[in-house]
Every structure is written in structure tokens, then in C-alpha cells.
């Protein structure tokens, strides 16, 4: 069959010249547009945190197990000035989207109470902005050794002039009101990027519903941020009741405590911010 110059038939081997020209123009347009679009879409992203999840690398840490209000491994810093006890706390987090408590309960079911004992544990480090967590990746097998608390780790009460943390009990910093976003520390510290914001919201809900303690992240817009673990006023977890406020702008009021290098906010006052007119309109429409 001879090729018709003004009519295109797809099953012929060749398209007529005018059609070939049009397709060539379309291809050239795409060849220019596709790289530009790919470049622009990448270039204009907000960027990602420098948080680190040491996936595949296990680290062994030794410290005192703190179970309440949130699970920590409290690691003593050796050779301090004036022998004043100084600690760094590593937040303990379970494997997958779970809090550490299920693993800790398994350990205690096997070995009896572990709170305030020195534990040697193995896990995957997650850290960002000076805050660190340890994922108990191996769950039951993550606990390597248990020993009594060493004499040197028991705090003494002197050398206040060095502003070290002399006490095992956290320091009360008074009542505060803070605005920010509630997310889960596991993702926020480096497992996911972004680990906060709208697209990540459902994941943060899943993590917090799974027992990971919620974290309020507060930012001032110029790279200055701080993070506050959130619990009920009596120190109980508030994971279940806070789910609806995860991943959206909220204002929290409560008592702030410093637990070594972490801040813990005891609160039952969570207020959603940035309610939109559209939302109010839809509420009226729903007769609520």
C-alpha cells in the first residue's frame, strides 16, 4: 500500500512526512521540557535534615535503663570535672513502628525488673540535632548483659558551680507554652526524610500509635530548633489521645522537665492551630 501524504495509518511501517514532522516537533519539545522539569522539581525542594539512621550498623551501648516516663538508656560520661556525674541519654525505640516498651517487657519477663540496672544493649543508632535514639533492631537479642548499677554512676550532690546535672531526678523548668508539630522521634531523627510535615503525617500517627513516644518539634525559622518528648501530666503515655493532633500545627502547655540532655513536657493541653475558614464552614454543614 502506498503511503498517503495527508492520512496517517498506525500499522504502516512509516508515517507520512507531515505527521513525522509534527511528531518530531513533539519529541524535541519533550526532550527540552523533560530535563528542565526534572531539574526544577528537584532543585526547588525544601531540603532534608542531616539526621542519620545507621541502617545495617549495630552499636553496643552500656548505661542505666530508665523506663519512665519514656524509656532511655542513661549513659554516664567518664572523667568529669570534680567527678560530678554527667550523663547522656539515648532514647530507646522498638523495631519497626513500635515503642521500646514491648521489647523491654519481654526482657523483664525473662530477667526480672531491669529499671535502674546497667544494661549492655545492641541496636541501630538514629541521631539528629544533638538528640540520639537507639532502635532495638534485634528485639529480644538486643540485650547483651545486665549488671547492677556501678558506684560511680550513682549521683552525688556537689560541684553545682559546674552546672552539671547532679541529680538522677530530672530538673523542673516550670510551666511553658510551645507551638510546633508533633511527630515521632524515630522518623524525625533520621529514619525518614522528611520525618515531619503533611506527607509524613500518617506514618507519624502509625509510629505513635505503635508506642513510640510523641515528640514536639519547635522551630524558629532560622535553623534553631528544639525537641520535647510529650507525656501526660502524671507521666503516663498520651499516645492514643494525641493521634488526631499529630503532624499539624499545635500549641501545648504544660510542665517542662530537663532529663539530662532531653526535655520532657508533661501536658494534657493540646490545641490545634491554623484552623481554616473552610474547615469551619464544613463543620457547620455537618451540623456539628
Amino acid at each position, binding site marked *: 500500500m502506498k503511503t498517503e501524504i495527508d492520512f496517517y495509518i498506525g500499522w504502516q511501517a512509516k508515517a507520512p512526512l507531515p505527521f513525522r514532522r509534527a511528531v518530531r516537533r513533539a519529541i524535541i519539545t519533550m526532550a527540552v521540557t523533560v530535563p528542565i522539569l526534572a531539574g526544577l522539581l528537584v532543585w526547588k525542594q525544601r531540603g532534608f535534615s*542531616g*539526621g*542519620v539512621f545507621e541502617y545495617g550498623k549495630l*552499636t553496643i*551501648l552500656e548505661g542505666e535503663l530508665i523506663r519512665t516516663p519514656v524509656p532511655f538508656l542513661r*549513659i554516664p*560520661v*567518664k*572523667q*568529669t*570535672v*570534680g567527678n560530678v556525674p*554527667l550523663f*547522656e541519654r*539515648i532514647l530507646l525505640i522498638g523495631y519497626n513502628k513500635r515503642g521500646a516498651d514491648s521489647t523491654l517487657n519481654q526482657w523483664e519477663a525473662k530477667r526480672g525488673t531491669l529499671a535502674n540496672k546497667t544494661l549492655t544493649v545492641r541496636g541501630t*543508632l538514629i*541521631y*539528629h*540535632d*544533638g*538528640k*540520639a535514639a537507639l532502635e532495638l533492631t534485634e528485639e529480644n537479642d538486643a540485650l547483651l548483659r545486665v549488671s547492677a548499677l556501678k558506684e560511680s554512676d550513682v549521683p552525688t550532690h556537689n560541684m553545682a*558551680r*559546674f*552546672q*552539671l546535672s547532679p541529680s538522677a531526678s530530672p530538673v523542673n*523548668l516550670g510551666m*511553658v507554652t*510551645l*507551638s*510546633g*508539630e508533633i511527630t515521632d522521634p524515630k522518623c524525625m531523627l533520621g529514619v525518614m526524610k522528611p520525618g515531619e510535615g*503533611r506527607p509524613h503525617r500518617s506514618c507519624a500517627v502509625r509510629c505513635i500509635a505503635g508506642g513510640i513516644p510523641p515528640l514536639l518539634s*519547635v*522551630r*524558629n*525559622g532560622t*535553623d*534553631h*530548633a*528544639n*525537641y520535647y518528648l510529650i507525656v501526660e501530666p502524671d507521666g503516663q503515655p498520651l499516645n492514643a489521645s494525641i493521634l488526631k493532633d499529630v503532624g*499539624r*500545627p499545635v500549641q501545648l502547655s504544660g510542665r*517542662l522537665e*530537663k532529663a*539530662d*540532655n532531653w*526535655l520532657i513536657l508533661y501536658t494534657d493541653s493540646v490545641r490545634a*492551630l*491554623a484552623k*481554616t*475558614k*473552610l474547615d469551619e464552614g464544613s463543620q457547620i454543614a455537618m451540623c456539628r
Partner: protein
Amino acid sequence: MTPTLRQTHRVAWLLLAIILPMGFVAALQLKPDSIVWEQPISLPLAAPLPVLVKSVENTGLQANLRREGQSTDRQLEIIVRQSLEVPSVVVRVVSRTNELAIGTLDVAGVYHFMLPDSTDHPTIILVDEVNHVVLQTIHF
């Protein structure tokens, strides 16, 4: 294409032409309010000593050596501009015999630590104690 299908196409796109711009405007008006900026609460700090003896710039931070009048007390002020992405930062003062810890650093902000002696040339190291790595050395 049948006239009915063509008509359905027309209606579908007219509907989308109305709905999508509405959705666009509605979704964009959510955006500006969605990010909350607030000054985070800093930890209670000892007041900085009034006299700045020396200042050193290091990667991501500024270290100041401070004193009060003619007193022998020396204070280390560290202004962390960009936090170090490591699991642990312990601040240690280096002497001939040992490296004594005077505190820890975490988020960006200002930190004050009293120094154990009155030298105006202390050497400070920042140590990642989890990995046993010296992160930075500050020479005054």
C-alpha cells in the same frame, strides 16, 4: 466517538474546569498557616561572665572564653550555630594528664560551662563518646 460520549467528555471537562480551580484555591489557602515558627525554649543558662577574653571560630560554632573582672574563674561559652550530626557531643578540657568532661552539647544554641582552672589558653575538645571520636579541637 459517539455523540453521547463526546457530550460526556464535554461535561466532564467543564466540571473539572470548575472543580479543580476551586480545589486549587482552597488548598493553597491552607498553606501559609501550616508552618508555625516559634522561638524554642532554651535551657536555663548561667549568665555569661562579662569580660570576653578570647573568641574562636570553629566549624558550625563559636567558642568564647569569658571571665569576671580580675577573678580567676574562667567560663567557656559555646554558640552552636549548626548542631553536629553525631550521637553524642561531650565537651572536655584537655590538660597534660587528662581530658575532663565539663558538659554536653545538643541542639543549636548557647551553652555556658565553668572551666576548672584559670588559664587563658585552654584547649577544648568535642568528643563523640559513642564512637570515641574527637570531633573538634578548640585552641584558645
